[in-house]
């Protein structure tokens, strides 16, 4: 009843043509691009893995085997847990957390500088030059890190010329290249939310704190950071989700023996041909990332409404 009333009001306000466009476009987006695909993926992840011609037949029944596989591995294996996948999973989450912390620490001073210290044309130029590297696509950026960190790369050559090391150090195997590349990949998404938050801070508050004798670190700790908390949280959320879900950088920069969880999903789809397991793993990744973000937001007392703007 209420819905019909709302709809009537909506149609009266927008006219028929516009209403149909609005409802059609938003409806298509929400239903066919966002909600239904996710539900179908969830459904698919609970199905037995059978070749495509048998989909929809009784053999394509519901099962928990893919989730069980993630934890316990195949029935015939020696160890009681699926050590490989679990290890990769936790390593991915931990690494994503560290990359996020690194980015936050790196970007906070930059955002502060842009928002409060720099001004005029200089600030504009800096903002513009922040954006430029991010029009170069992710793969080329990762490639640049390969050039730097490779065995005959710039870093090894430089260190060897300086006499610090005398054998090339394998930065790729030790995942240095991967972490540097991942940290680099999403800097922009950390800088801008923090920048937006700090920019709206009244300069007088900082002045007042300084006049009252606060050292610079306490000004940040008690005035700027609490004010910028929503921005920091939203930056961290984005960087964490994107890092945990990154595929290009781990594929290109990962060491030969290390995997990122998305690579396991990719293998399930493209090499093993096991779409159901791939879907199940994708859901595990998505659900744990969301859970972790919500948990941390609770821990830091940030509400979802504050960051979603």
């Amino acid at each position, binding site marked *: 009843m209420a819905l019909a009333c709302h709809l009537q009001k909506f149609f009266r306000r927008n006219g028929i043509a516009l209403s149909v466009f609005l409802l059609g476009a938003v409806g298509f987006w929400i239903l066919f*691009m966002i909600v239904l695909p996710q539900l179908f993926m969830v459904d698919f992840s609970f199905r037995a893995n059978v070749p495509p011609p048998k989909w929809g037949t009784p053999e394509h029944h519901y099962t928990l085997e893919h989730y069980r596989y993630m934890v316990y591995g195949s029935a015939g294996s020696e160890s009681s847990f699926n050590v490989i996948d679990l290890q990769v999973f936790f390593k991915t989450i931990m690494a994503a957390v560290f990359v996020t912390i690194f980015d936050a620490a790196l970007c906070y001073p*930059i955002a502060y500088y842009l928002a409060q210290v720099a001004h005029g044309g200089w600030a504009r130029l800096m903002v513009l030059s922040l954006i430029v590297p991010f029009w170069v696509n992710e*793969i080329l950026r990762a490639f640049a890190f390969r050039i730097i960190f490779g*065995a005959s*790369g710039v870093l090894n050559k430089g260190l060897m010329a300086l006499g610090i090391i005398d054998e090339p150090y394998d930065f790729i195997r030790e995942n240095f290249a991967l972490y540097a590349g991942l940290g680099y990949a999403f800097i922009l998404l950390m800088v801008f939310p923090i920048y937006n938050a700090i920019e709206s801070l009244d300069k007088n508050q900082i002045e007042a704190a300084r006049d009252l004798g606060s050292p610079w670190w306490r000004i940040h700790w008690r005035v700027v950071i609490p004010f910028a908390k929503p921005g920091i949280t939203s930056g961290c959320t984005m960087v964490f989700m994107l890092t945990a879900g990154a595929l290009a950088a781990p594929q290109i920069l990962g060491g030969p023996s290390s995997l990122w969880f998305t690579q396991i999903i990719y293998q399930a789809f493209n090499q093993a041909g096991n779409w159901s397991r791939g879907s199940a793993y994708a859901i595990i990744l998505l659900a744990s990332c969301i859970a972790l973000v919500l948990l941390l937001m609770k821990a830091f007392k940030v509400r979802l409404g504050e960051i*979603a703007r």
Partner: protein
Amino acid sequence: MMAALRDAVVRGGLLTRIGLALFVACFFVYLFGPLALMGITAFNSSAFPRVSPWECFSAEWFAVLRNDQALVEGLRNSVLIGIGVVALAVPIGLAGALMLMQINRRVRPWYYTVVISPILVPGVVLGISTLVFWDRIGIMFNAGHETFFYNGFFLTIIGQATFISAYSMLVFISRLQRFDPALEEAALDLGATQVQTFRKVLLPFLKPAIASAAVLAFLASFENYNTTVFTIVSESTLTTVLAGKVRYGINPSISALAVIIVAVTLLGAAVFEVVKRREQKAAREAEKVARGEVQTRARRKPLLLEPAMFLILAVFVAGLGTVYFAGTVGVEECKAAVKEEKRRVAQERVRKLQQQRMFQRAAPVAGEGEAAPAAPKAQREDSSGFGSIFAPQNLKEQVESGPPAAGTESFQGIFAPENLESQSGAGQ
């Protein structure tokens, strides 16, 4: 006295200011260093992308790039998909933003969470869900594999538009927040239909937002990899071709592509800045006219006659010319010289090895340590840490360093210490 000075420095924040400035400088080095180094490798004639050893300044990799069929086809597909995404995502984003303005207060947070969620969901998940969903739908309709349900272009456009629509919605929201609803009401009061109001009032107001949403959507689509790699099925885009290339065997033509992209980006940024300044200037002038300070507005020059535009164009052409001439004139001579130099070094090595062999024949035990360095070094250069067995320079280097390799071969098995190491390592 000193204490007072120190106090002044600390309170004035001089030290923290210097520290901050240094930090900012380091940050920008981190931001641009990798791209700059990659750009340099695009001009090195060495077949492997590296800065040192520097061989010759050459533009040959740009030609290699142009002749790369797979890349050119990927580029074409990427542009087509980008256009499709713009056509789909911008109207959806617009509708989403208009809807947000009108929707019931209580439903709004839920609605917002749902439509903004694709930005946070990993691209991999979006790609998989799109693929699975349309596949199942295709089965439901009993559609054959040649129908659009299984078409890589269709799937990729839909998959990418899922989150790119949310980007463009954000652009529209920030513009709509400055829209005065009274304008719309006035138009309706004056007898315009809703469609007329939309077309004559709202759309002109949103024009800049539409332009920036379109640019953003195109670029986001153009550089997307995570979603595309699942939805593209049997087709290819620039990013999937690049990913394949970077993983298996690389040469500096990829750096050359990055140089082109950066150059185009810089050009775009510069032009954008000029246009923006022009608009600001025009707005200031209009204000002056409105206040009656100036009688008439100065006639606007065409964009191309703007001095700044001229400067940008000049810099661009000069850069292009420099690269062309420096990269094509005298490169062959330089390469010949480098080759000659390499040959000389190789011969030198052979000579030394021969000498060593003579010594070793005389006193085998004493020579053990000295013969070794040549062998691991040659090996390391070949592998270059990239494991790029397909990189053409491997072949070349092997051919060029043929004589020394032949010379070392007889020793490698016996004297090279790393063999001993690996053997003892295996023993443990």
